[in-house]
């Protein structure tokens, strides 16, 4: 019985991934060196956290284009917060920023019925603007060295961000599989009307999805800022698109209701290794942008043909 209906596509993805790793390894053996793997790990962690958040937004049938800008704002506020109130409070403030902005997105989308794409697009500009204003256009420097531990340190030879990413995957996976909230995401993404009739509080759940998405951006922002040891208002520009790509490549459906943590993980790994491999092969980052765009479109086309004919009346 094909219980895990995603099984086939995830298997395909895993195979492609392995194939890609081998290809890049042949081109540049240092791909699998400890140093490189560590780099990949750090890079991928940020994307991982972000992709989890984006997955939530996409599962409920929406999308979040503001994640990159929220990262920037979080970066600035966390840095200033650390300077003003100390490490703990500063970091907390950063995540809160993400939650609040995400919730705002969610409310405009569910209670005011505005299209997710437009709302989060506007938030993208709004958050970036606010970030730039607060920072006065300049990075926030002179942060305590403890600030950098999160992003730059490692435990047992594995970079801290990787631990955070793993934790994010585990927690999000748990939420999606084992909480009523998570299951409600799938239900709403599947058929909103039916969910409503079954008593699910659709609006609230949607707000929660976007709030969590914002929170993921907050966390990602903190990791990034920590690595740079400064608060940068321009941080995260364009990362939301990478997150979308990771989620879509990982098999999630843009209309909602389909997709999971496993697929997203594969999607993240795919993008991270692709970028890393291309880097090692001396392909410019500009060309990489082209590649990612093409991959995104191709994935969508394949998805169209992949979708099984529904037999629900």
């Amino acid at each position, binding site marked *: *019985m*094909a*219980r895990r*209906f995603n099984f086939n596509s995830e298997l395909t993805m895993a195979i492609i991934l392995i194939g890609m790793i081998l290809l890049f390894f042949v081109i540049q053996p240092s791909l699998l060196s400890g140093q490189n793997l560590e780099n990949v790990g750090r890079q991928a962690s940020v994307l991982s956290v972000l992709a989890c958040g984006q997955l939530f937004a996409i599962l409920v049938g929406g999308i979040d284009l503001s994640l990159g800008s929220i990262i920037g704002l979080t970066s600035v506020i966390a840095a200033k917060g650390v300077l003003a109130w100390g490490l703990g409070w500063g970091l907390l403030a950063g995540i809160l920023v993400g939650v609040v902005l995400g919730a705002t997105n969610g409310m405009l989308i569910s209670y005011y019925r505005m299209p997710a794409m437009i709302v989060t697009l506007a938030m993208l500009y709004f958050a970036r603007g606010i970030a730039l204003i607060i920072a006065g256009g300049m990075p926030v420097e002179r942060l305590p060295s403890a600030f950098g531990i999160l992003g730059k340190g490692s435990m047992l030879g594995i970079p801290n961000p990787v631990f955070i990413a793993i934790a994010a995957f585990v927690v999000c996976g*748990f939420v999606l*599989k*084992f*909480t*009523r909230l998570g*299951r409600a995401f*799938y*239900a709403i993404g*599947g*058929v909103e*009307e*039916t*969910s409503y*009739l*079954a*008593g*699910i509080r659709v609006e609230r759940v949607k707000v929660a999805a976007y709030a969590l998405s914002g929170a993921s951006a907050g966390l990602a922002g903190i990791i990034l800022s920590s690595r740079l040891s400064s608060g940068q208002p321009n941080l995260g520009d364009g990362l939301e698109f990478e997150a979308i790509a990771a989620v879509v490549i990982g098999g999630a459906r843009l209309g909602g*209701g*389909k997709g999971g943590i496993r697929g997203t993980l594969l999607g993240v790994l795919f993008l991270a290794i692709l970028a890393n491999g291309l880097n090692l092969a001396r392909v410019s980052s500009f060309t990489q942008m082209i590649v990612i765009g093409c991959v995104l479109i191709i994935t969508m086309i394949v998805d169209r043909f992949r979708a*099984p004919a*529904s*037999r*629900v*009346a």
Partner: protein
Amino acid sequence: MPLLTAKDISKSFFATCALDNVDFALERGEIHVLLGQNGAGKSTLIKIISGAIRPDAGTITVDGKDAEHLTPIKSKLLGIATIYQEFNLIPDLSVAENVFLGRLPTKERWPHPVDWRKMRKDARAFFEQVGIALDPDAIVRTLSIAEQQLVEIAKALSVDAKVIILDEPTATLTRREISALFTLLKKMKKRGIGIIYISHRLEEIEQIGDRVTVLRDGKLVGTWNAGDVQINELINAMVGRAVDSTGNEDIRHQRKSDDVILEVRNLSDGRRIKDVNLQLRRGEIVGLGGLVGAGRTELARTLFGADKIVAGELRIHGNNVTSHSCRNSIELRIGFLPEDRKSEGLLLNFSVKNNISLPSLKHFNWFGFMRRTAENDAAQDYIGKLQIKTTGPNQEVRLLSGGNQQKVVLAKWLQTNADMLIFDEPTRGIDVAAKEEFYKIILECAVRGAAVLLISSEVTELIRMSDRIVVMREGRIAGELDRSEFDPERLLSLAFGQSSLQ
């Protein structure tokens, strides 16, 4: 005391009266069949009971308690569950999750994770108890229609529904699946559940029904015990008064022609219609009858090129047509007035004249620019010819009444010089006077040499207008009646699939 009563229910939609002082009662542990032609008011009544629509007048009581201001959620709380033909399931989730939607069982300890094992166990136990054979982990999308229906029923039963409404449950089931369903329904009866059962399969009444209620034109005709009434009595009740098929005889003879405009052989669309043979001649009005879901609209759309032809031949004006499309049809002078005139027949925010000119843009084109005066004149012309009540060619079509909107749709096709017109339920939602006008217009079209295919669910309309009637059932042609053989009983029996009456 009856389980559910609906008293004096009335409901109108704009000018049309859908229900007129209808009484209905459902007893505990009975299967009450609701019968009537298309448009008789059955689905309106059901929607009112389930809270999807509010009645204009009347009361509903459940278990003696008044049920005011019903909403879908409220009626669910009162124990009313409706299972429509379009299922209310989430296709990518499992059976168990659909049944327990919104109330997934969780474990005691914090963080109260969803208890999948318990859900599976409970579902299995429940299925066994009720007699349904389903795998709780199966994904709904992969199930057959019959199995999905079972999930819906399980869903209803698991929330202790007292009243279950089934809308055409057996329409798409095999014989074996139907008998499994009936066994289940009988078990439900024993538990005291009341079932409202809408069906067009008259033989099922004997098999499973306890009582029968017939609606006609929004009014209650009668309620009988299933054993006390004969099938032809029921058909009579559904159809009603004798039908006038006189008049227009002379014109009919004049119109007869052998010029076949459209012909299909073994037509299939891969979805609904199978193996259809049909010929439409100049000046002829062919009525297309059958029940909802018989495939009439699908046939019309395929003839017009809106849906793909998978097998069979199509000949128009004697020429074989290989790749068909809407534009192709328009070139070949076929016009199609869809069932849903507001969302498919017209562009509501467009003006009268813009709607009329849309299929004929080529005609009004002058190097790409629209010849606006010509467009205006054409619209004025049709406003006059068809007596369209409007303030002028520039008025937005959404402001017109149903009858006048339909005239605009027709004008659009007359503008293309169509000599083959397909009308899909053209007089639905139009008041009596406008209907008469429209009948005259259709006749006029035929007199002028158009071939007309008239799809209608109103037996009286078909009998009055058609030269011959073709009846469809379940995607195929069930039979054809010539004018001399017109008889409502025969029509309905062809539509329902009764091979013999009495």
